[in-house]
């Protein structure tokens, strides 16, 4: 496998301050010996290293069930040994008691308790759930084959600006995501914060999330949506509120003026599908490329964001992501592709 492919390997795009050793995982590191797969439980894309209450609920549920499961399993194995060793048969009455209490009452109580707990964890069951999300900051995320369109909505529902494959939220503030899809079913999942929520054509689903720790996390598509489904990820930046406001206002005023790079970008028709604010590029078929240089990845989490990778993506998008909806530009002169890549990398 190609090392540039971050997505497939599940490696974090970039670690934030709260990632790595400080997670919940650490408390349970003994478990790693028992369950090696848990070794991947810390990091930017781990539901077991939560940074928000929803994900924390899921993690607690997971551990509760895991430990409970281990205890029950030990009990059953113990019973098995007991039955195998026992010489004298049970009386009919005590056997009946065992089956009743151990085989019917106990599982019913345990399952009912777990079900209640899990249902309580579901969004609409939560005590803080507000049906009316009108006061909240709203971000519309549309799953497209195979990338994420992200619109920051203003007071009047109109988009303030659009970006792609990256979501920024302020720490400590509950944000509502309006989830849509124009093509097939996708699913929005930020394991560290919560989710998943399906994005269904013709519908608008809502998911409210809050990040409690600043950091850079990774979101993924959790519903198979085509050949490049596994290469459809996004970066989540949970930022301190002050830094967030600064970013918002900077982002509203970005402009992509760079005479030569921009001229080449327009000359070859990239603007048919891509927009860069402050320029005449207004295409909305593909991802908005305003401030592209700041983004964590190229091609929705497929490649790290470097000028070489951008050039590679422009030449052979299909080589990076099978059946991608961007035509290849390998027929352009190398100098033009490199100039455009440098231009995009320089966009702030």
């Amino acid at each position, binding site marked *: 496998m190609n090392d540039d492919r971050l997505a497939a390997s599940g490696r974090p795009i970039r670690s934030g301050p709260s990632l790595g050793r400080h997670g919940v995982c650490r408390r349970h590191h003994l478990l790693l010996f028992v369950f090696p797969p848990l070794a991947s439980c810390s990091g930017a894309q781990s539901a077991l290293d939560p940074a928000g209450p929803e994900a924390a609920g899921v993690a607690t549920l997971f551990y509760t069930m895991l430990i409970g499961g281990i205890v029950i399993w030990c009990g059953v194995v113990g019973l098995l040994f007991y039955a195998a060793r026992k010489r004298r048969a049970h009386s009919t009455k005590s056997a009946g008691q065992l089956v009743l209490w151990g085989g019917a009452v106990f599982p019913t109580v345990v399952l009912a308790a777990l079900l209640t707990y899990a249902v309580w964890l579901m969004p609409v069951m939560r005590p803080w759930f507000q049906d009316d999300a009108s006061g909240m900051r709203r971000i519309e995320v549309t799953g497209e084959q195979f990338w994420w369109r992200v619109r920051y909505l203003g007071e009047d529902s109109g988009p303030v600006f659009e970006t792609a494959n990256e979501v920024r939220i302020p720490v400590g503030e509950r944000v509502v995501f309006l989830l849509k899809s124009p093509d097939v079913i996708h699913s929005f999942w930020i394991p560290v914060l919560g989710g998943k929520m399906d994005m269904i054509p013709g519908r608008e689903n809502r998911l409210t999330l809050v990040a409690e720790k600043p950091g850079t996390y990774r979101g993924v598509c959790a519903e198979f949506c085509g050949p490049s489904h596994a290469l459809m990820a996004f970066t989540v930046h949970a930022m301190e509120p002050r830094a967030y406001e600064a970013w918002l206002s900077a982002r509203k005023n970005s402009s992509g003026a760079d005479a030569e790079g921009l001229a080449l970008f*327009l*000359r070859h*028709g990239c*603007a*048919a*599908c891509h927009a860069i604010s402050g320029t005449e590029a207004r*295409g909305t*078929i593909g991802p908005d490329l305003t401030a592209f240089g700041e983004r964590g990845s190229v091609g929705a989490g497929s490649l790290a964001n470097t000028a070489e990778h951008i050039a590679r993506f422009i030449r052979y998008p299909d080589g990076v992501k099978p059946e991608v909806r961007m035509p290849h530009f390998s*027929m352009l002169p190398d100098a033009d592709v490199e100039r455009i890549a440098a231009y995009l990398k320089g966009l702030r």
Partner: protein
Amino acid sequence: MTIPRKYLIALVVVLPLLGMVFAWSGLMSVRASTGHWGVTDWFLHWVMKNSVRTAALFVEVPPLDDPALLPPAAGHFETGCAICHGSPAQGRSDAVLAMLPRPPDLKMVVPTWTDAQLFEIVKHGVRFTGMPGWPTGLRDDEIWAMVAFLRKLPEMDANAYLQVSGLHGIGHAGEVSPLPITCESCHAEKRLTEGSIVPRLAGQSEAYLLNSLKAYAEEKRPSGIMQVAAGTLPEESLPELASYYAKQAPPARQIGQGDPQLVERGRELAERGRPADKVPACLSCHEKAGGNPAYPRISGQTAPYLERQLRLFHTGARGGGPFSHLMTEAARSLKEEDFAALAAFFASRESRGP
């Protein structure tokens, strides 16, 4: 009565062997000069007619009464068919009359076939006879134009044929042009009308013309007509031809008006696209100041030509130069009602260049 097993085996093994021995001996004649026996001739033609009749059963015939279908088909007939079948301007030569079977005078036989049957014959050719298939399997529209022309053939005299095919002369000594059919026969500005399906070349971008000619010659842009016209040219003449047409001034013409509603819908798509369906704005690639010269001018082209090309791109059959996949992607999500609107808008627009 039962035949003993060993006689059966002898029959199955020995007969084919005898056949091979006969073929090897060279006694089987392949001479065309001696002709077929009457019964062989009848049988072969009977098989051919049956085969064409059955194959044509499910062929749907489009409308063929558009006079614009005739000129390119007639020009192609002169280069691709008349050599065997003769034409109203010149009969068959003795050389082809000595073929077996002899290519028939189409004036006489065309009325015996239906449109669908003619389509079958022209598209696929006739095996073992010398009758070739169409140079590409992807351009049924061109074959239908040929069928439309064949229908008109029986009533055509030499003059009408010269007119419709753009033939410069019939190759007698002292003719002005040494070639009976040239690019001008089909593409000359004065031969084009509002309804032409032949593209206008005057003032087109040079890079695009060259890419297109190369694409025809390399069979990357399927067109039976243009593959024949460009395929035999020496490679070094292509840049000359491209530059010749690029330098011609685009004609000062009366721009056709077109249905205003249709034109308006076309304008909307051309300027803004339809992002919900992933249709990009055409003008973000075409006819931009400082734009890539491999992206052609389309304004001022005739509406029927534009519409045909858009449909070809839409189905993925158009092909073209090294940039053509961009256009295939742009046309992929067009809807049925878009083709005419876009064609009407660009046909009625003043030609502007990159």
